[in-house]
């Protein structure tokens, strides 16, 4: 029996990583194909995000900065869509911009999908896509002084001063809040440091799960009024907004894959200690 166990642990210790890959693939595929739809509660940072937008009066103008690229779309695109859904449902005017070049077409697609197809909003009157601007923090500081000067033309090449929704908008003082969907840098941290702490405007953020832990101090200090962290944050937010998007759809696969990784950690350590805890370099 003991010899058999040692053999098993040795086999586990030298397991081909491709077998691990197969487990992970199945952990994602099977729940997507056969969803269970476990219910879940909403956490305070997500509640703060939703409630702040919910408190906006109809007709207010909000800046939505879509600072991400296809690499983080599964986590952030569902947030982007849900944010637009809540804003358009409340008849809030949306001014969209991007600090990441690859965010431009993604944001345009989200605006068309939600704004035009779902809510039949009019471009220029209910929302505008200012497009991408290079410069990261410099763009943020520049917008704090003058937004039309920073973005003389929108994504479609129209003069910003001639766009109805931009009338009366000079800088951040003319906006009700800023919502940042962030895939990394430049993103939430830069908006907090350069804009929120300097111009004291309400700022809410949706970010990847990798970044979320480091933004909890900003939520606790009040520099962020709300925080959506990763796909779970997107799912919680979708629940509040009342949509069934990829966020909620992916939760079962997320649950199973996390359990699989947890089991890997446990089994790996059991095998390691059962074999005497030898140190060796591994190619992971």
């Amino acid at each position: 029996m003991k010899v058999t166990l040692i053999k098993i642990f040795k086999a586990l210790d030298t397991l081909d990583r491709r077998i691990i890959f197969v487990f992970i693939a199945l952990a994602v595929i099977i729940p997507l194909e056969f969803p269970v739809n476990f219910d879940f509660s909403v956490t305070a940072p997500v509640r703060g995000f939703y409630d702040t937008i919910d408190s906006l009066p109809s007709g207010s103008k909000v800046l939505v900065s879509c600072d991400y690229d296809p690499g983080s779309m599964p986590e952030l695109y569902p947030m982007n869509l849900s944010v637009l859904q809540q804003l358009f449902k409340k008849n809030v005017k949306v001014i969209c911009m991007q600090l990441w070049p690859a965010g431009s077409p993604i944001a345009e697609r989200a605006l068309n999908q939600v704004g035009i197809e779902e809510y039949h909003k009019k471009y220029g009157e209910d929302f505008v896509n200012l497009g991408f601007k290079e410069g990261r923090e410099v763009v943020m500081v520049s917008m704090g002084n003058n937004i039309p000067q920073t973005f003389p033309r929108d994504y479609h090449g129209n003069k910003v001063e001639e766009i109805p929704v931009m009338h009366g908008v000079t800088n951040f003082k003319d906006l009700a809040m800023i919502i940042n969907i962030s895939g990394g840098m430049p993103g939430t941290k830069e908006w907090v440091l350069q804009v929120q702490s300097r111009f004291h405007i309400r700022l809410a953020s949706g970010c990847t799960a990798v970044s979320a832990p480091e933004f909890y101090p900003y939520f606790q200090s009040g520099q962020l009024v709300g925080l959506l962290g990763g796909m779970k944050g997107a799912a919680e937010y979708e629940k509040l907004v009342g949509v069934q998007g990829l966020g909620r759809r992916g939760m079962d696969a997320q649950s199973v894959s996390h359990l699989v990784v947890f089991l890997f950690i446990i089994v790996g350590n059991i095998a390691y200690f059962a074999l005497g805890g030898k140190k060796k370099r591994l190619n992971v």
Partner: protein
Amino acid sequence: MISTELIGIWVSAVLTLLIFSFLYKDNPFYKFAEHLFVGISAGYGVALEYHNVFLPNLWRPLNDVSIPLANRLPLLLPFVFGLLLFTRFFEKISWLSRWSLALIIGIFAGIAIIGYGSGDLVLQIHANLLPIWTDKWLTSFNNLLLTVGLITSLIYFFFSKEHKGAFGATARVGIWFLMISFGASFGYTVMSRMSLLIGRVYFLLGEWLGILK
């Protein structure tokens, strides 16, 4: 008639599978997709800069006769600074590119000092000045833990003094808080990576094969 969207979905699926082939082992198909991606992403960025910065912020205002000449001429300065960057390709005059680099570095250094000073330093310290005696025992406990955690973690990062004795013990407590934070970060990182895979599998099974319910 096959639509461009259908062709696009098949192209996307094939490219996705080419990259996933790396999981078996490095192979020419993966290398092809990898190099194609690098080329396309680099070229994509240039086109975006042209349409979103060069044209609206420089070229059009420079050639817009409705703007007074005195307001247009200063734009030649960033144009020249931008072109000076390309002197890096010519060894004899590459020192000129330092002027443009110095401008960028100086601006970002100035912005960073203000941003980090107000946003991360002052406001974060202020946010941790919490009462450790309140009406609710849990709030008091949490505030105490936040205070102790911050101070001990900061002490850990003070390497000018050897971590011995009471100082060392305090730094050790700081390590425990740091380990908790790294563990939380690892947990969230796992969540993030799995989400990205969920997104791709959703595309393959849903949009491409159409077998998701």
